[in-house]
């Protein structure tokens, strides 16, 4: 996992089967990143990853020979440390819950703005301590109160699980994808976790929700960051 402050020092691998897009994205990246590698499909990307330490993988989803999903699945078996991963997709036929748990940080939809693209990549390589400092300006439409027994898989089904960029838990409330204010009360511990985020996936069937952090309340910020640093989880948002 890359823990860099600046894209300028990052080594990026860009994977897309479309030569024009490789050229355009490459042009955008070349001026702001350290080293840039390019590949036209998953197989070529794996070959690069096996030999070269990569901080950030930016990949298309649908590609011939080996698509982005297969690449991410293979990556976790073959490559260590795992780079930050950003998907650039033309079509949302991806199981986001699985991909977030495999380490994918963001899904960008084509076509996209240069500024948005760079912002997301910057965040993906940034130190966790530089993130989630400021409240999201717009008020959240939905709020979620969780009563959890603890953090991590050992505390039972009613625990929450922390990832590099968010958490997952169980709730009986119905949620929609998008902004959310959350408050987690822990039965076992003294502390609470509250802040703002985005509901990235929600499953009514097993009453599970995955939330990406956008802002962490100062009262809980330091212990949450410490927890993440100690566990160093592979998942961006773990699957429950």
């Amino acid at each position, binding site marked *: 996992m890359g823990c860099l402050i600046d894209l300028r020092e990052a080594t990026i691998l860009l994977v897309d089967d479309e030569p024009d897009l490789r050229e355009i994205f490459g042009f955008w990246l070349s001026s702001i990143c350290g080293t840039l590698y390019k590949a036209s499909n998953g197989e070529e990307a794996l070959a690069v990853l096996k030999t070269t330490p990569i901080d950030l993988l930016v990949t298309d989803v649908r590609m011939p020979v080996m698509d982005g999903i297969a690449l991410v699945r293979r990556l976790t078996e073959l490559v260590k440390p795992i780079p930050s991963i950003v998907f650039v997709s033309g079509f949302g036929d991806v199981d986001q819950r699985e991909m977030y748990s495999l380490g994918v940080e963001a899904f960008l939809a084509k076509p996209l703005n*240069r500024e948005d693209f760079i912002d997301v990549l910057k965040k993906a390589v940034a130190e966790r301590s530089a993130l989630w400092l400021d409240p999201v300006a717009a008020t959240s439409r939905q709020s979620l109160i969780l009563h959890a027994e603890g953090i991590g898989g050992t505390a039972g089904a009613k625990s929450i699980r922390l990832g590099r960029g968010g958490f997952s838990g169980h709730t009986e409330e119905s949620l929609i994808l998008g902004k959310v204010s959350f408050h987690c009360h822990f039965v076992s511990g003294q502390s609470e976790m509250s802040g703002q985020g985005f509901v990235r996936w929600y499953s009514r069937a097993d009453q599970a929700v995955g939330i990406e952090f956008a802002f962490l309340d100062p009262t809980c910020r330091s212990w949450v960051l410490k927890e993440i640093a100690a566990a160093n989880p592979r998942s961006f948002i773990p699957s429950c």
Partner: protein
Amino acid sequence: MAHLKKLFGLTALGVLALAVLARSGVLASLFSANYLPHRYCYLAQPWLVWTNVASDSLIAISYVVIFSCLIWIARKLRDIPDIHAYLWIFFSFGLFIVACGATHLMEVVTVWWPIYPFSAAVKVVCMAASIPTALLFAKTTPALAKSIRRFLEMLVSTEHERDQALSALSESEALTAERQRSAEELAAVNEQLNSVLECTSDSVIKISHEWVLLYGNGKALAGLSDFRMGEDYWSCFPAVAGSSSEQHLRAAMDGHAETTWENYFEPYELWYRVRAFPTDDGLTIFLSNITEEKKIRDQLEVEQLLREKRIEALSHMAGGLAHEISNPLAIIHGRASDLMSRAGGEDQLSAHEVHKACENIVKTSDRAIRILRGLRGFAREAGKDPMELASVYEIAEQCIELQQARFAVQNVRVGIALESGIPHFLCREVQIGQIITNLLNNAFDSIVQSYSAERWVSLGAEYTNREIHIDVTDSGPGIEDHFKAHLMEPFFTTKELGLGMGVGLSLSRAIAQDHGGSLTLRPDTEHTCFRLIMPIKGSDVSNEEELSSIGVPYRPA
């Protein structure tokens, strides 16, 4: 009565004879003083003589008449057994009366002819008749009175009984009238019922518990030519035995349960909806001819399947299409935004750079437009499109364009081998495109499912004997022999669960046949090859200049 009339007639004759005698002067001489032979009778007073003579004569005549009457009554009554015991009364009384009459006659005779000994003898006879008569009569009177009383009582009671019988009769007549009225009403109701049964478009038949045909309405008799009243159902309709209809009929009969089912009756080539209602005396069966309805329903079903098939194929392609369209858009967007930012910055853009970027934008836009054009045809209901002249090259190009992304993602190469000079042909272009797309989909699925090392699909077309042959061949593992016979059946599929509904080939073939063509699996090829044949009619062939040939011969490695 007739006899009384006779009696009056005779009396009148007698009076008439006397009147004649009086007029002749004989009677006048009788009233003279010299008429008496002996002068001592009745004081020789003529009025006394004649009063006696006339009275005695009339009494004698009356007695004879009474006697005759009595004898006449006795003769009439002698047949009645109850009267037998009393018949003697008539005879002895009659004898007595006659004897009395004779004595009176003798009174007249002796006025002029003094035969007194004879007169006495007559009186003795009269006495002899009257004394036993009186005795016997006196002796019998109480019994006779009783008998008469009994007779009269009997008569009264008989009359009473008769009255009763008469009133009973009149009552029974009322009852009969009532019954007749009921029968008429019943007949009217029956007629109404019959008219109901006759005016329905259903055939109605009735079967007894022993499967004997009891009734059939007019429709049944006309429509079911094997229907014979009074005969065994199974011998009239042997085709039903052993069919599912038999099971339904027996279920209704034995289970006493109303049963409805649909049935194709082969001898008449008709579809029936059959409703069997159990009754006390067997089964009542309504047969509705639903052949037309069934035809429409089947057609609707096929249309529905076509629609679902199209939706299925659409969702198959949606991912590839979204990718295919979002990529060109991303390129256009990226190129244009780069141009914009560099033009606004300090960079000096050369004309060559601008031209190159714009050329890339136009080229990429064209790519997106081609994809959209292919989609436009596919997303539409085409069954009612008019037949139009179409080019096999254009159809093939659109189909390939639509599928290219999907094929590329799975590393399946697409080869196109279209012979040049194939004329335009009359068809519903969108439907032919759907057949080819469907064949390409099948070919693709077969390759992807089998993980074949060899991965290609070829689309070929040739023109021969006024037919266009369009072949779709794939490098997949082929179709197992025992599946080949079922390939074109609806809902038959060799695809994995969730990948296909099994209606593509059957519908494609239906469309091909609708165009007067055919769709078959070629039996003699190394690889799986489906051939769509479209006939060319004389008027289809347009002039040679219109024919295009964009085909590039392709031979799989």
